[in-house]
């Protein structure tokens, strides 16, 4: 049995969305159902994604049941990236218990700074006592380790941000719209932790996105244009202290699983584009390598020779990626929604003739947990 994505929605990401969590989740849920002409009564199960720490309230889904349309329905909440809620909803459908599932993910970063919460992800008795540590500092350590080992320069990192921000300027969902930005300006932006500069950090923001999933049996009754989930891969790596920061081993494993499930042996040849979650600019290059579309240490070549640009052979982040807006729990779903739009030919920064995409998201400090989805339209 296969599972299809039959509907989707997302609100434009914003530094301050000006709506309560209940209001914005309700809007996104409603829009997603309308996108596939379903009503609440046809939904069998609802899986949301949010996090108590990022939401600033305990049991973060408790106030959202009405807004999600989940009252008196079989419901649960994934407490991590929305792509993992998609996988859980998919498992619920594959079990044969449910036919149609709604997935909604949100984070309102305007409530308070998500980078502050990264300190609560540190091991409390030793690491958290070191006041210098947070997600930005750790990513700087990761960047330095990677740069030293493979001779990657700050210009290469700035070039990642340059590519993604140019794409973002054409995406009405993005937060950071700087169409005339130059590499020099990125390199001159404020230093947060050497070599990480302001425009190399995914800007945290408010966002909500939803998708509607359906079993193979009912998918065609809902839409003539289903997007199939062909492969799924999840892998968790070691806590940052106990792993080699110069590579993303857990992503390699997640990608391998997803490729095997989708029957892909040559990802570069068999996939048309990718939407990935690069919370910091250097991570995009590391992700190319872990996904097997670039050889070890050669990620920068794909960027510098134009391959991953919008008009290249393997475009990455036509939406602008996480560097154009990072709504934490919803970021994976924003990547997925962009991939759906590209495949259906509905995207604003459209790549022509694409059918199959890789969607990636990460969770935890310096990309400890990684998720890969392979999605494709009709053959």
């Amino acid at each position, binding site marked *: 049995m296969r599972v299809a994505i039959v509907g989707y929605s997302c609100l434009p990401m914003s530094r301050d969305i000006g709506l309560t969590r209940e209001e914005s989740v309700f809007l996104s849920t409603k829009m997603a159902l309308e996108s596939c002409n379903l009503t609440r009564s046809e939904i069998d199960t609802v899986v949301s994604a949010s996090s108590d720490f990022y939401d600033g309230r305990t049991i973060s889904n408790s*106030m959202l049941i009405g807004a999600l349309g989940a*009252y008196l329905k079989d419901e649960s909440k994934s407490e991590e990236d929305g792509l993992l809620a998609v996988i859980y909803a998919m498992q619920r459908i594959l079990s044969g218990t449910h036919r149609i599932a709604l997935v909604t993910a949100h984070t309102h970063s305007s409530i308070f700074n998500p980078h502050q919460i990264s300190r609560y992800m540190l091991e409390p008795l030793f690491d958290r006592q070191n006041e210098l540590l947070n997600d930005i500092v750790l990513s700087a350590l990761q960047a330095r380790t990677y740069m030293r080992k493979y001779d990657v320069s700050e210009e290469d990192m700035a070039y990642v941000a340059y590519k993604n921000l140019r794409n973002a300027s054409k995406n009405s969902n993005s937060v950071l719209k700087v169409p005339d930005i130059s590499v020099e300006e990125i390199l001159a932006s404020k230093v947060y932790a050497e070599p990480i500069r302001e425009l190399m950090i995914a800007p945290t923001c408010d966002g909500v996105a939803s998708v509607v999933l359906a079993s193979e049996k009912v998918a065609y009754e809902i839409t003539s244009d289903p997007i199939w989930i062909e492969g799924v891969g999840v892998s968790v790596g070691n806590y940052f202290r106990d792993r080699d920061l110069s590579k993303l081993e857990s992503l390699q494993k997640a990608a391998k699983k997803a490729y095997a499930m989708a029957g892909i042996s040559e990802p570069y040849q068999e996939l048309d584009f990718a939407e990935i979650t690069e919370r910091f600019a250097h991570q995009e290059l590391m992700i190319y390598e872990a996904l097997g579309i670039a050889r070890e240490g050669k990620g920068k070549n794909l960027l510098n020779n134009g391959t991953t640009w919008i008009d290249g052979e393997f475009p990455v982040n036509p939406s602008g990626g996480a560097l154009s807006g990072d709504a934490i729990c919803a970021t994976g779903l924003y990547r997925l929604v962009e991939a759906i739009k590209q495949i259906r030919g509905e995207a604003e920064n459209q790549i022509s003739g694409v059918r199959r995409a890789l969607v990636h998201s990460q969770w935890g400090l310096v990309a400890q947990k990684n998720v890969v989805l392979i999605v494709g339209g009709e053959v």
Partner: protein
Amino acid sequence: MRRVAIIGCGQTKHGRRTDVNQAEMVSEAVWNAIDDAGIGIEDIEAFAVGNMQGFGGIAHPDLIFAEYIGAVGKPMQRVATGGTVGGSVAHLGYYMVASGMYDVVLATAWEKHSDSAEPGATTGLLHVAFANLSYMFKLGMDLRSFAIMGLAGAAAGISAYQAAQYLFRSGCKIEHYDMVAAKARRNAAKNKYAHLRWPNCKPEDIAKTEMLIWPMRFGHVCPASDGASAVIFASEDAVKKFGIKEVAWILSVAAFADEENDQGESYQGTGVLDYSEQIGCVLSAKKAYERAGIENPRKEVDMAEIYSPFPHQELMFSERLGFFDEGTAWKALEEGVTEIDGDFPITPSGGVNATNAIGSSGLQRVLECALQIMNKAEEHQVPKDVRIAVAHAWGGQTQFNTVTVLSDKPKRW
């Protein structure tokens, strides 16, 4: 549909566990489950995890101790749903196997309340609460709303309202709550993993304790425990492959959410007013029985593990789960029907009223039902033959319920 069984159970001693940190505590339960199943860590394909992260003061603690539980390099999925989280983790583990994606999944849920009592190092819950308050002020909510929220008094506060509502709804007396609490502590005395163990505890002993907020006495309130539980789910193929003889099959799961209960401050204007109504529980049970092919729960089910941090909830949920007619659970209690050696034992482990490590509590209900079916509950094994058991968990703003139906035989389709 794939058949799914529980092939291994592990838990820690629950109580104040200052001898271990969160990582060590969870791995204790995980390795106990792996030993119990008689398989190796390499046989576990994926992990289902969950706790209420604010209570232990660590955001996503499972990432810190992924290596301790052997999850590195493997898929791990996390859920969190409030008090129900352990039940939700069990459902996640079940669905991960039932989907056909994995054959063997380890589910673990835990809480280490004593950590968040240490100021400075782990002020997670406080942090979570303050963040929401600042947001409320930003939205222009006044101090009156803040005061009402404070008066709600968290889980015990809401439950006191619920206990009062149930008194009127069912016609029972506070003395019946004393009887349930005494039964919980007596049963816990037979369970070596439990927290508040009180051999021969009598209702009069509970009645002597201070009235905290009418109708709730100190002796009615659950402890804040530290502890972890772990359960291994396996497909029918894996059960055959490992040649495991003692298993408990999952017949069905269901978890219907309701809207939050109105605590004097309705965010959406639609909150539930009678906290003892529990339509979500009624619907979860109905759906779970329908999926399991059970028509008469009182006759076909042999025992239940009900999530009742406060004693009125055991009576209330035993009605909502369809074991007794509305307003009659207290009569069954008086007749001794729900005792360990009764006709329909309820929570022979002592349950959440005697041991409450939030995340662990929901999963422990499923684990205890599995132990009873496999005849491995040792001193608190019920004398009657257990073929079908029901595990329940409750949470959220008294709005979430998870129901799991277990059996000694796989489901027939």
